[in-house]
């Protein structure tokens, strides 16, 4: 693998920004949970609490014109690309000021202007779609890279395997990031998977290196993503990264996650394993003073509060949106 530049990961300002990004994701998600319980967020929502280091670390390694393909658990991946909190909260609440004016909802966050090329809620479907974007970049010679996030449960669906083979044979600039949080919805992935490392153990089948990274360490995630993205940009083809992590809460909505052993939850939520507290401790060790960290946190809290209020102030989507944008001409007519 080629590493062309010295990594900025050793720079304290860079780290502080990565910390800010993780705190923002954490506090956004905590607020989203509250809003769900208060019935502001209807339908469903899937949080990334505990997994923030992956969305933040990978996004930090991307160029603004690179593409993110996310899942229904995609609030974090969307925000990490620079999308503002207000339209995301508003989308969760089904408001007209939502990111997609309420037409997509929590599971389909998309912001093309930020390179967030959709969040997909059919397991595995977006892996081949990301390949298509990468193919387009390759054909047009733009050196853009597609990064696609998915879970450990997703490695057992056919689309995963089709996409990996496709990306490998065409040497597509795509980075596959498997967030191994040990669970599908309510079943341990290991109980239904033939190999121990759901993604990494499959890499060889597609001629790829097995890559496993501590998904709760944003610096480590950043480094591994940077290498994979540079490789893709240089025309050296795809990478498959397995990032080991854990979701602190349940699968979706208000799932209490009771199917998980207490000791396991305690281990992963401890200050030593939690990506946000861990990263904070690292910054303290590097000499960043408490006041600086407190200011970052207070700024994020203020942003979350303001965004919550702005989202709540949004109107309900009007009837004009209902029959809009089925077709590229903006309409929904199917007959004359």
């Amino acid at each position, binding site marked *: 693998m080629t590493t062309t530049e010295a990594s900025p990961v050793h720079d304290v300002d860079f780290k502080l920004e990565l910390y800010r990004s993780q705190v923002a994701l954490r506090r956004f998600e905590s607020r989203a949970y509250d809003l769900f319980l208060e019935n502001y967020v209807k339908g469903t929502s899937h949080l990334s609490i505990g997994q923030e280091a992956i969305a933040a670390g990978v996004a930090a390694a991307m160029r603004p014109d690179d593409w993110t393909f996310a899942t229904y658990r995609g609030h974090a991946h969307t925000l990490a690309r620079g999308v503002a909190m207000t339209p995301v909260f508003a989308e969760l609440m089904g408001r007209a000021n939502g990111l997609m004016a309420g037409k997509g909802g929590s599971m389909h966050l998309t912001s093309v202007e930020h390179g967030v090329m959709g969040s997909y809620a059919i397991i595995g479907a977006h892996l081949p779609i990301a*390949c*298509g974007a990468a*193919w387009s970049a390759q054909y047009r010679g733009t050196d853009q890279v597609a990064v696609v996030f998915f879970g450990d449960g997703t490695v057992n669906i056919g689309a995963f395997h*089709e996409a990996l083979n496709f990306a490998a044979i065409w040497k597509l600039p795509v980075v596959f990031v498997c967030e191994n949080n040990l669970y599908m919805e309510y079943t341990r992935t290991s109980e239904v998977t033939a190999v121990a490392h759901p993604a990494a153990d499959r890499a060889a089948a597609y001629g790829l290196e097995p890559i496993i990274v501590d998904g709760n360490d944003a610096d480590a995630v950043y480094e591994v993503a940077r290498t994979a993205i540079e490789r893709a940009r240089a025309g050296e083809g795809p990478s498959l990264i397995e990032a080991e992590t854990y979701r602190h809460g349940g699968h979706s909505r208000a799932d209490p996650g009771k199917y998980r052993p207490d000791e396991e939850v305690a281990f992963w939520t401890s200050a030593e394993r939690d990506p946000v507290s861990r990263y904070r401790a690292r910054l303290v060790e590097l000499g960043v003073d408490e006041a600086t960290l407190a200011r970052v946190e207070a700024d994020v809290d203020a942003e979350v509060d303001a965004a919550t209020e702005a989202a709540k102030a949004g109107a309900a989507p009007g009837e004009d949106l209902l029959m809009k944008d089925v077709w590229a001409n903006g309409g929904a007519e199917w*007959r004359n």
Partner: protein
Amino acid sequence: MAELTYREAIARGIAQEMRRDESVLFLGEDVGAAGGVFKGTVGLFEEFGPVRVRDTPISEQAILGAAMGAAMTGLRPIAEIMFADFFAVCWDIVANEIAKTRYMTNGQMSFPLVIRSGNGGGLRFGAQHSQSVENWAMMIPGLKVVVPSNPRDVVGLMAAAVRDDDPVVFLESKALYPTKGEVPEGEIVDALGTATVLRQGSHATIATLGLMVPRALAAAEELAAGGIDCTVVDVRSLIPLDTQTILRETSATGRLFTVEENPRVLGWGAEVASIVAEEAFYDLDGPVVRITTPHIPLPAADTLEDMALPSVERIVTTIHKAMNS
């Protein structure tokens, strides 16, 4: 004016668009050097090379996923699904991803892509390589669906499909591949959503599509000899649907027959019949009658397949009986 086969018209239509626009790419299984399993794409690989005409693995989800990702980032891919029955293994990409994403994202993305596929029966291939699936595609909001019946329309509708900014499912009637027709020289570009009136009559109107068009025309000739003069409308495009032409031609004769290759239940003619019932009821002189494949998987044996698909004879007798009762 040159005489081309329906199969040659496929390559001609694709080549016309690929020459004009570098953003048009073509991918599928065995489509490149091999020229397609039905030899519908012979010559494209030689003319446009392996970068624009790409052979893929047997990965229908990847083929259509790749087309979708390419379309959302500014290309205009044409993807081939070898047999339309195989849509069942990649239907998620068609029905949930390609069809819904523009709406879900509040119009942030467009999907200017074409999915072409060999559709329907007549080749004695048995149930998994013969189904006529235009009604599958038609019932998904967000997909356009066209079915050409002759070589000229193959070229013109292919151009319209490629130039359209929405996803188009382009269904080729497999049994028509060897049939011939006149195709004018030069560029041909049709409009989606336009039916054509192929024969004008005064007693009854037949609305039909794809492989059933030549059969309906032959039936109309026989019926005319027996004193029943039929209008034949080639529907060509199911979405958008040229309802006005169908309504106008139905009102003019007072009778409507649909001739459909798809299995009976919820075939496209059911939608047409319901539109006519709502909007032209008082112009009708008798019930709308649908002539379809029965609601069965298609059998392989030639004798059985011929019984299943609407034949010239079945069209003639059905219309004759209905008009004389």
